[in-house]
C-alpha cells in the first residue's frame, strides 16, 4: 500500500506516492526486484485530462534515456513520454488496451505503463527525484499553472 504526499491547488488534490522515484517530466519509476515499473504521476494525469489512448512501446523494445517510452493521447493533449532509464521493456500493461482510463483512475497502481529490465539502475536512479523533491517541484508547477487561469 502506497503512502502519499498531498497538496491541494484550487479544487484539485494532487498525490505523490512516497514509495518510488520520479522524473521532472512527471513519470514515476519504481524498483521491483531487478525490474522497474513506470507510470504517470497523479499530477500529470489530472492536468492532462481523460486518457483516450495509452500506447507504450511494445515488449522487447530497447530503451536508452530519452528514447520514446510510449504515447498517451488525452482529450487535451498528446504526451510523448521519454524513457527515464536504460533497459528493455519486459511487459506492457495489458489492461490499458481496453481500459486506458486506468491511468486516470489509478495512476500509481493498475494504471502503470511498462515494466522494464534495467541495464544500469545505479546510473539511472541518480538522475531521478526522490518523492519530497518531486513533490516540491510538482506543487510549484501546479501553483504556477493555476495562477495563469
Amino acid at each position, binding site marked *: 500500500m502506497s503512502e502519499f504526499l498531498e497538496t491541494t491547488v484550487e479544487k484539485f488534490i494532487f498525490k505523490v506516492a512516497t514509495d518510488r522515484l520520479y522524473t521532472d517530466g512527471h513519470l514515476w519509476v519504481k524498483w521491483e526486484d531487478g525490474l522497474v515499473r513506470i507510470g504517470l504521476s497523479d499530477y500529470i494525469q489530472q492536468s492532462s485530462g481523460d486518457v483516450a489512448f495509452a500506447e507504450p512501446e511494445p515488449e522487447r523494445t530497447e530503451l536508452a534515456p530519452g528514447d520514446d517510452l510510449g504515447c498517451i493521447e488525452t*482529450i487535451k493533449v498528446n504526451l510523448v513520454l521519454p524513457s527515464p532509464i536504460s533497459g528493455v521493456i519486459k511487459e506492457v500493461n495489458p489492461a490499458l488496451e481496453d481500459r486506458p482510463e486506468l491511468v*486516470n483512475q489509478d495512476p500509481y497502481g493498475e494504471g502503470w505503463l511498462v515494466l522494464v529490465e534495467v541495464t544500469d539502475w545505479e546510473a539511472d536512479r541518480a538522475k531521478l527525484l526522490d518523492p519530497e523533491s518531486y513533490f516540491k517541484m510538482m506543487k510549484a508547477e501546479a501553483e504556477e499553472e493555476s495562477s495563469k487561469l
Partner: protein
Amino acid sequence: MSENGRVLILPCSGIGKTYGTVGREAAYSLAEELRPGSAEVVALSLLVMGDEELRARVQTSPVIAVDGCKLACASKMVAESGGRVAYEANVLDTFRRHRTLRPKGISRLNPEGQELAQELAQELAQATDKITRGEEV
C-alpha cells in the same frame, strides 16, 4: 415508457468543454433530425436544481445519459433523481472508436468534431429504437 412515449435524452452540461459540446450536438441531432418523435432532450441543470416535474418524468421514463467526461454527471443525476439510465453513452468512448475524429472547439466544433457528434447521434438513435421497442440496450 413515458407518458408521451418519448425517450428522455440527458446530455452533459459541461459548458466550455469540447466533449460536452459533442454530446449536446449529438443529442440535438437525435431529437431534431434523426428521431424527432421518439427522443426529447431535457436539461441536466433542471435536475440539479431539483425540478419536481422533471424528476417525476425521469422516474417514469427511459433515459439516455450522454456524458462528456469521467465525472459522468448526467448518469449520476439520473440516479440521484430516482431514475434509471436505460443507456449510458460517453463521448470519450465514441472517440475511441473513431480516433481520426478528434474534436476541437467549443461553441463551434471543427469538422471532425461535428462528424464525431453525428457518429454519437447514430449510436443514440440505435439505442432509442431498442428502448422504444422495449428491448434491453
